[in-house]
C-alpha cells in the first residue's frame, strides 16, 4: 500500500511539472502584450518599456518561468497586472467561495446519486427504475444555467427562501455562508447527480450479474444483503472515477453558475482576467486548478487501492 502510494505521489509530481510547462508555454504563445493592453493604444514607447521592465516582461522566457515557479512554491503568485494587488490574495479570497461551493455540490450530488442509483438497480425494469432513469435523463439534458434561473425564479423571487445572488461571506457564520451557496450548489449538483446515478446503476447491474453475487445468495444472503455487502464496494470503482472527474469540473467549471448567481468565485476571476489580458492571474488560477485536478486524481487512485485489494498488491 505504501509503495503504491509513493508511486502515485511520484507520478503526481511529474504531472504537475509537465502541466506547469504546458500552461506557461500556451499562455506565452497567446497573442496580446499585457503592457500595451494596460496602457492603451496611444502609449509612449518609453512608458511601455518601463512598464514591461516593471512587470518582468523583458526577461527571457526561461527566467520568467523559473521565477514564476519558484514564486509559486513560496506562495508568491506575483502581482496582478490590472489590479496591482498580490495574485495570491485574490485567489485566496475567491477560493473561499469556490472550494466550499464545489464540495457542497459534490456532497449533494453524491447524496442524491447513491440512493437513486442503488434504488434503480435493485428495481431493474420495474416502475421505480424507469422513473429514476427518466428523471436522470432529464437531469442530464437540462442545461444548468437554465435550471439555475428556474431555481432563482421559484425559490428566490416567488418563495423568497434564498437570495437571488451574491455571497454573504463566512464572517457572518457558517449557516449564512452555506445559505447563500445553497441554490448555486443545487444548480451545479443536479446534472452531476443525474450522471452519477446512472453510472452507479449500471455499475451495480454489472456486479449483480457476477458469479460471486450468486455465491453470496447461495450462502443465505437475501437479495438486499448481497447487494449491500458484496455489490456496493465492487461497484464503487467506476463510481469513484466519475466522482473524481466531477469534482474537477465543479471546481473549475462553475463560471456560468457563478455569473448567474453573481458569486465572487475562481471562475469569474479567470473570466475577468482573460478579458483584461491579466496573464499572471490566468496562469496562476489555471495552475491552481490543474493542481487541484491532479491532486483529486491522486486521491481517487488512493481510494481505488483502499477499495480493491488487487491494486494494493500490484506494485
Amino acid at each position, binding site marked *: 500500500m505504501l*509503495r503504491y502510494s509513493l*508511486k502515485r505521489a*511520484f507520478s503526481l509530481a511529474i504531472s504537475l511539472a509537465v502541466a506547469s510547462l504546458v500552461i506557461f508555454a500556451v499562455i506565452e504563445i497567446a497573442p496580446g502584450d499585457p503592457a500595451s493592453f494596460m496602457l492603451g493604444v496611444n502609449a509612449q514607447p518609453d512608458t511601455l518599456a518601463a512598464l514591461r521592465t516593471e512587470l518582468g516582461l523583458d526577461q527571457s522566457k526561461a527566467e520568467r518561468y523559473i521565477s514564476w515557479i519558484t514564486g509559486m512554491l513560496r506562495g508568491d503568485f506575483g502581482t496582478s497586472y490590472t489590479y496591482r494587488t498580490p495574485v495570491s490574495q485574490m485567489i485566496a479570497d475567491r477560493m473561499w467561495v469556490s472550494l466550499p461551493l464545489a464540495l457542497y455540490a459534490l456532497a449533494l450530488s453524491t447524496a442524491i446519486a447513491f440512493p437513486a442509483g442503488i434504488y434503480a438497480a435493485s428495481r431493474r425494469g420495474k416502475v421505480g427504475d424507469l422513473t429514476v432513469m427518466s428523471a436522470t435523463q432529464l437531469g442530464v439534458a437540462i442545461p444548468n444555467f437554465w435550471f439555475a434561473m428556474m431555481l432563482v425564479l421559484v425559490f428566490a423571487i416567488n418563495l423568497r427562501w434564498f437570495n437571488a445572488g451574491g455571497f454573504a461571506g463566512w464572517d457572518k457564520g457558517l449557516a449564512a455562508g452555506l445559505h447563500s451557496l445553497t441554490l448555486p450548489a443545487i444548480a451545479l449538483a443536479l446534472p452531476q447527480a443525474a450522471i452519477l446515478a446512472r453510472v452507479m446503476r449500471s455499475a451495480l447491474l454489472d456486479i449483480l450479474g*457476477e*458469479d*460471486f453475487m*450468486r*455465491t*453470496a*445468495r*447461495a*450462502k*443465505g*444472503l*437475501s437479495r438486499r*444483503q448481497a447487494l449491500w*455487502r*458484496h455489490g456496493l*464496494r*465492487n461497484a464503487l470503482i467506476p463510481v469513484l472515477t466519475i466522482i473524481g472527474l466531477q469534482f474537477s469540473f465543479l471546481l473549475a467549471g462553475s463560471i456560468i453558475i457563478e455569473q448567474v448567481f453573481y458569486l465572487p468565485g475562481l471562475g469569474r476571476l479567470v473570466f475577468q482576467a482573460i478579458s483584461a489580458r491579466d496573464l499572471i492571474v490566468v496562469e496562476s488560477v489555471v495552475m491552481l486548478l490543474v493542481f487541484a485536478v491532479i491532486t483529486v486524481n491522486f486521491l481517487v487512485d488512493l481510494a481505488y487501492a483502499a*477499495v*480493491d*485489494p*488487487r491494486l494494493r*498488491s*500490484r*506494485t
Partner: protein
Amino acid sequence: MSLLQIKDLSLSIHGIEILQRVNLTIAPGEIVAVTGESGSGKSMTALAVMQLLPAGSETTGSILLDGEEVLDLPEDRMCELRGAAVGMVFQEPMTALNPVKTIGDQVMETILIHRAMPRDKAEERAREVLARVGLPPERYPLGRYPHELSGGQRQRVVIAMAIALRPKLLIADEPTTALDVTTQAQILDLLKGLVREYGMGMLMITHDLAVVADMADHITVMRRGEVVEAARTRQLLTGMTHPYTKMLFAASEHQVSLPETVGQMPLLAVANVVRDYPLPRTSLFARPGQHRAVDHVSFTLHQGERLGLVGESGCGKSTLTRAILGLEPVQAGHILLDGQPVYSGNKANLAVRRKMQVVFQDPYGSFNPRHRVDRLVTEPFHLLENPPMGSERRDRIAEMLTAVGLSPDDSGKYIHEFSGGQRQRIAIARALIIRPQLILFDEAVSALDVSVRAQILDLLADLCASYDLTYLFISHDLSVVRTITDRVMVMQAGRIVEQGETEQVFSDPQHPYTEALIAAAPRLPRRRPMIAR
C-alpha cells in the same frame, strides 16, 4: 427418509419449457450425479432446489428438502435454508469469490449471516473448515484475498463456505470443470471425504462421465429437460438401456483411427526456444524480473505427422503456440517452418504465415458476428498474393463447407445461426481453405459436448485421410490427445519433460509428471464385453 425428493418438477422460463417432470431422490450420505450435455437442464435442476432461478421462472411439481416443500417456502425461509441446510459449490472458482473481501470474511459470512455463533467462535470455525479443505491457517491466513490464491485453492475456499455450517445437502455444479486434472482429482477426493465424514447428501452436476462413474452412488442422465435414465452407478454402467445414455458413454470414450502417415520430411523445427515475460517492477529503479514461460523447448514436427502437446494450465503451451504462429518474438532459439523463420524483422513472416492456420477453443468468440459464413471462411485469403475470385472463390467455399460436413448453402448465413459444433466445423473450414501445410488446434474440442466432440474428432480423422493434414494438437484432455495424435509431448513449467509415440507415452510413461497426469485423469471403467449395445 430421503433428504431431498424431487417429484415431477417442471420448469419454464418466460414460457419456454426447461424441465419436464424431473424426478430425483437423495438419501443422507449419498452422492447422486446428474449428467447430460449442455442444455439438458442439469444446472437448472440444482438452482431450482436452491430457489435461485432466473427471473421469469415458473415451477410446478414438488421439491421436498428434509420434509419441507421448497416450492411453497417464502423467500426469507429460503434464505435461512441456503447456506445452513443446503450448501452450493459452483463451476467457476476464479469468479465465485468476491475479489474485494478476504477469504476469512467470506467463509465467516456463511456462519454470521445465519447467526449460528458469535464472531470469535465463527472465526475459529472458519479456520477449522479452511484447514479441513486443505488450506491450513498457518499458510493461508484468513486475511488472504482471493486473487492471491490459485484456481484450485479458490475452489477449496468456495467449498469451505458451503460446508461451514455442515449442511445436510451439498450441491456441486461442475465443481472441477475449470480445473486441471491433478487439481480435479484432489478436489473430488476432498468432496468425497466430506460427504463421508459429515454424512451429507450430495447432488453433483457434471458433464464428465468419467468423474460421475468414479464418484457417484447413483446416476441420473438428463437430456433436453427430461430424465432419460436413472439407476445405481454400477447398474447403470453395466446395464444402461436408453440409447441416449449409450451414445453418451460411447462418445466420451470415442476412438478414431488415423490413416498411416507418409513421408518423414521435417516441416516445423523448434530449436531451443525461450520465451520470457517481464514481471512488473518491484521498485521504481529495479530492473523488472523475468518469467520464463517457455524454457529451451526443442522439437521437430514432420510432414503428415499429428503431434500432441499436453500440460496443465500455466505450463506454457499457449505461449509456445503464439510463438509458433509468429505472433510474438522469442528471446532465444529459432522456429522454422519449411526452413523459413516464422518471425522476422519484428513481425510475423507473411510468406511463412500463409503456410499455417489455427483453430481456437471458443466456438463463440472466434468469429465476427456481423460477417456471413462465406466472408468468415475466406478470411485467410488476405494472406495470399492472388486470392481466388468470383466462381473460383465460390467453389472453394462450397468445397470446404462440404468437406467439414456443412452445406454450400450455409455460406450466406450468419454465425449465430449455428450451434457450437457447427461453428467449430466452420473454424476448421476457415483454417483449411488455403491448404496450409500446418494446422494448430489450440484446445479445439475442449468446449464441446461429448457427442459433438466425437463428431469433430471423426471429422478430423476423415480430413487427415483426404487432405493429408499435419497438425499440432494442443489440449489438456489426455483422452482426446491419445486418440487423435501419433506422437505426444508433455509440457511442465515451460519445459518438455517427455515426448514419444502417443501409445508408448500413455501406456508406459517415463517421467513422474506424465505418470501423475495420467493417474489423475478420471477414466470410465472398462465395460464388460457381454453387455449388449
